[in-house]
């Protein structure tokens, strides 16, 4: 059985080490916070916060306290607030250990596309380009194929890039792939998924 959203998030949480400062993207990456267990992880929200807490209880929402997805959130005992220039200085300066992000396409050279589809409504890249260019390690979490069944793990991205050669690891419903010299290397298969199935769903070069 391929992994579901929660299993993908749980697998992505294994990427995080005690003491890390991490930025989680919108969608499945947000769920990663539920699976960090006892590890001491500090979440960054790029609108100006370290130590992001869970959503507030109803009636306790604070309009001055939101995450990068503009959702109301809460603070923790460790929380620090800062301005946007400081926030991206810590991202650009390599202080954030890892970013876990969703993607539309990833290529075998680590190229990432996740911000625009030509001809469709363009909303903007937000902080995604800064994050992938700046953080220590970029982990993509996404479905292996799109809703038409086409591979999202490609030899070359077809969509406009968010970053060039920036992805380190890809976690999909089928398993885990690393970007290495010459292509992608299978690190792990989801329970019950065969290597042949993984290769068949992957357009990118898979190296041994």
């Amino acid at each position, binding site marked *: 059985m391929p992994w579901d959203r929660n299993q993908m998030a749980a697998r992505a949480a294994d990427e995080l080490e005690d003491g890390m400062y991490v930025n989680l993207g919108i969608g499945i990456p947000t769920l990663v916070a539920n699976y960090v267990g006892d590890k001491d992880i500090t979440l960054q929200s790029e609108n100006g916060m370290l130590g992001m807490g869970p959503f507030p209880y109803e009636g306790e929402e604070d309009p001055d306290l939101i995450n990068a997805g503009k959702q109301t959130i809460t603070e923790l005992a460790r929380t620090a607030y800062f301005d946007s*220039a400081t926030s991206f*200085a810590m991202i*650009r300066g390599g202080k954030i250990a890892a970013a876990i992000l969703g993607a539309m396409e990833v290529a075998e050279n680590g190229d990432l596309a996740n911000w625009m589809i030509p001809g469709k409504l363009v909303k*903007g890249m*937000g902080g995604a*380009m800064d994050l992938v260019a700046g953080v220590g390690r970029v982990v993509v979490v996404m479905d292996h194929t799109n809703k038409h069944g086409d591979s999202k793990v490609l030899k070359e991205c077809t969509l406009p890039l968010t970053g060039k050669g920036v992805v380190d690891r890809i976690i999909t419903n089928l398993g885990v792939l690393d970007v290495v010299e010459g292509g992608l290397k299978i690190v792990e298969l989801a329970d019950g998924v065969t290597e042949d199935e993984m290769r068949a769903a992957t357009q990118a070069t898979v190296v041994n």
Partner: protein
Amino acid sequence: MKKVYANAAEALDGLLFDGMFIAAGGFGLCGIPELLLDAIKDAGTKDLTFASNNAGVDDFGIGILLQTRQVKKMISSYVGENAEFMRQYLSGELELEFNPQGTLAERMRAGGAGIPGFYTKTGVGTVIAEGKEHKDFNGETYILENGIFADLAIVKAWKADDTGNLIFRKTARNFNVPAATCGKVCVAEVEEIVPRGSLDPDNIHLPGIYVNRIIQGDHEKRIEQRTTRQKEEA
């Protein structure tokens, strides 16, 4: 010199002109200078260029200036929450320059610090890098981005003293600090103006040197995505 003004219209008096470039603080609807934006709407100033991370929603924030066709160009990182924005952009009425969020923040910070340009890795190999100078440092490629020098900065803070020292609250600080620094003139709206000496000098987020005019007012502080969790059963 007196920095405290009675209201937004008075604080903006003599500062507005058609075709001007305004840097605005805020992220989404959080920490936006809502009273000053209202006053710019009432003043009817046209052909505005805004450097602002977002464009508000249809009826709040910069969105209200889109409704009245007062905006010529937006420099933003994300504009997804605004239907009128999209309509004007797709019909060619509105210019849009996408900046990566950190690049936009640093362009403001740099402008405010007298730095006309800086190199960044952000956007290398993407459409953002097209037409920009590329330069290698220590084997890595960077692109040149320009500092922002705006005619006016408008920001929202939590508290000010009468000398313009500002304190922000939680994530409402966001772009307000870099935006405030990059304007020739900065007008700040706050929830409370307190007498000098009331704020802890060790905890000023933005020193009053950057702030020329201040107003106090009531803020709606609208929430864009109200998200909550259930209380667990005891």
